[in-house]
């Protein structure tokens, strides 16, 4: 499990970081060429709304944490990738929870987490059923949490069928972020994904079911946009069913004013007992997901950092501390103490400025590079925007694309941890190699000679020369060293 970066480590930047910050001051001083996910590509008002939401801002997901409370178990549709009987603590995907909560328990849990996890900025309700269909519990939870912790952002996720009925209440409660899962805008394709929906007191099946669902989703999307609520559209990429079609979905939701589109891979396994799992429907490979995401880039802004988390996840994206906060571990009574969250926010404000400056510096470094290939680089990180995790401890790699034009985040790839108590796992290594398909280089805080040699044999370079650098700066420095003239200031 990825660990949260400590306040202490954030307060004391490494010397490498300081040097990069000073490099930034002497180099590109323009503030108008920021990263694709920073303030540069959106209005200051919009940035203010998304900058602390890890799911709506790639930049924010390095610093802020979300928690989901599983208060909404009832659902009004059936999806072929979902099995509502499935409950497993070790399984990480949407719709799965270990412990359902009533609103009373949820409020207690949120306060306990807010006291312990200073990174917490968002409370989401994402099921395990549907947050809008199970509205009574969703609403009560949000209202009561808001009274206790007024600055916590509220966010919900829905299939959209019941959404239009509650848009006004959503707006009244100042829920600023709503996610709708839209897998198809063609009911014929939808019918292959949704066997039935329950609407207007009856169960609908086939194309008709998908037509009703689509109409309600589009109506809900329009109503939210009209009330200036930010909408993220999630789409599950299902090879052979809706993969090519998602280009059309992207166009449609962009036209309707969705803020963000998140294309995520189908998670499918016979052991999950889902329809797709049992029929052998495969999920896409990481490279297939990336190819599709690249095709629709330029449409609605794309989310590439989704971790498809559980409906009871707690922590920064990519980690889940839910097991630390089960009801049996919570004290009888809890009261909210804002001190740690406030302190964390003030520290992050400073660190973020530094991180942004190093991204600019990275661009300046890359300007030195000519005629170099476009490459994928996998980074081992425990958060905070730095290359700060051992290769063997990584449970996921963040993948960046680097070219003379810049460094951009393209996604993350989950792997089985290679190193357990000092020795490597053979099986895990093979899995990592497969997962890193298309990646040319791994940057990490530390890597042993054995795994390094083995990676080299399959054509993947690995380096810990940029340990603890900011990610973008480290990648740019590595790239410049490989393909360009290395600026003198770059050595950390």
């Amino acid at each position, binding site marked *: 499990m990825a660990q949260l970066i400590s306040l202490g480590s954030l307060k004391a930047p490494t010397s490498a970081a300081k040097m990069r910050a000073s490099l930034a001051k002497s180099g590109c001083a323009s503030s108008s060429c920021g990263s694709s996910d920073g303030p540069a590509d959106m209005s200051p008002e919009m940035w203010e709304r998304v900058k602390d939401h890890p799911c709506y801002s790639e930049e924010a997901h390095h610093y802020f944490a979300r928690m989901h409370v599983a208060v909404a*178990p*009832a*659902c*009004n549709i*059936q999806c072929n990738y979902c099995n*509502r*009987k499935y409950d497993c603590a070790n399984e990480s995907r949407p719709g799965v929870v270990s412990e*359902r909560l009533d609103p009373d328990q949820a409020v207690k849990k949120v306060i306990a987490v807010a006291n312990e996890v200073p990174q917490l900025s968002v409370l989401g309700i994402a099921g395990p*059923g549907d947050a809008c*269909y*199970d509205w*009574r519990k969703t609403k009560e939870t949000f209202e009561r949490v808001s009274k206790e912790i007024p600055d916590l952002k509220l966010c919900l996720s829905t299939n959209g069928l019941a959404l239009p009925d509650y848009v006004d209440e959503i707006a009244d409660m100042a829920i600023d972020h709503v996610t709708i899962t839209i897998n198809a805008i063609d009911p014929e394709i939808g019918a292959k994904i949704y066997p039935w929906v*329950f609407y207007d*007191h*009856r*169960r609908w099946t086939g194309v008709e079911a998908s037509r009703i669902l689509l109409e309600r989703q589009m109506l809900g999307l329009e109503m939210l946009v009209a009330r200036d609520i930010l909408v993220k559209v999630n789409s599950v990429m299902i090879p052979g069913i809706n993969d090519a079609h998602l280009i059309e979905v992207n166009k449609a939701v962009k036209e309707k004013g969705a803020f963000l589109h998140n294309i995520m891979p189908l998670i499918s396994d016979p052991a999950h007992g889902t329809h797709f799992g049992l029929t052998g429907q495969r999920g896409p490979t990481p490279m297939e997901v990336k190819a599709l995401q690249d095709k629709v880039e330029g449409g609605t802004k794309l989310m590439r950092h989704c971790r498809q988390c559980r409906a009871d996840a707690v922590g920064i994206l990519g980690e889940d501390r839910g097991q630390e906060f089960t009801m049996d571990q919570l004290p009888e009574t809890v009261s909210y103490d804002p001190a740690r969250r406030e302190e964390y926010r003030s520290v992050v404000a400073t660190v973020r400025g530094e991180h942004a400056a190093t991204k600019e510096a990275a661009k300046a470094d890359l300007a030195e590079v000519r005629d170099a290939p476009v490459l994928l680089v996998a980074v081992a990180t425990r958060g905070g925007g730095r290359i700060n995790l051992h290769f063997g401890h990584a449970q996921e790699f963040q993948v960046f694309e680097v070219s003379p034009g810049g460094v951009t985040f393209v996604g993350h790839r989950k792997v089985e941890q290679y190193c357990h108590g000092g020795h490597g796992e053979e099986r895990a290594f093979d899995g990592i190699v497969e997962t890193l398909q298309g990646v040319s280089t791994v940057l990490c805080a530390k890597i042993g000679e054995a795994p390094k040699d083995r990676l080299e044999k399959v054509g993947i370079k690995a380096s810990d020369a940029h340990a603890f650098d900011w990610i973008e700066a480290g990648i740019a420095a590595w790239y410049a060293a490989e393909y360009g003239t290395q600026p003198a200031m770059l050595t950390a």
Partner: protein
Amino acid sequence: MAYKIIKSQCTVCGACEFECPNAAIKFKGDTYIIDQDKCTECEGHFDAPQCVAVCPVPDTCVPA
């Protein structure tokens, strides 16, 4: 004329509770149960029993 819930199949999602037009379904202990005296199989209300129509697990809300 009434329905019952097969406990071993039930996911305890509660969708049936708020679709029931007779308020016949309640959470009791660790599962939902249908009050046989209140259940009308939705006759006079809807074309089909609501608990059956909304339940995510086949053959879980069945004639008693």
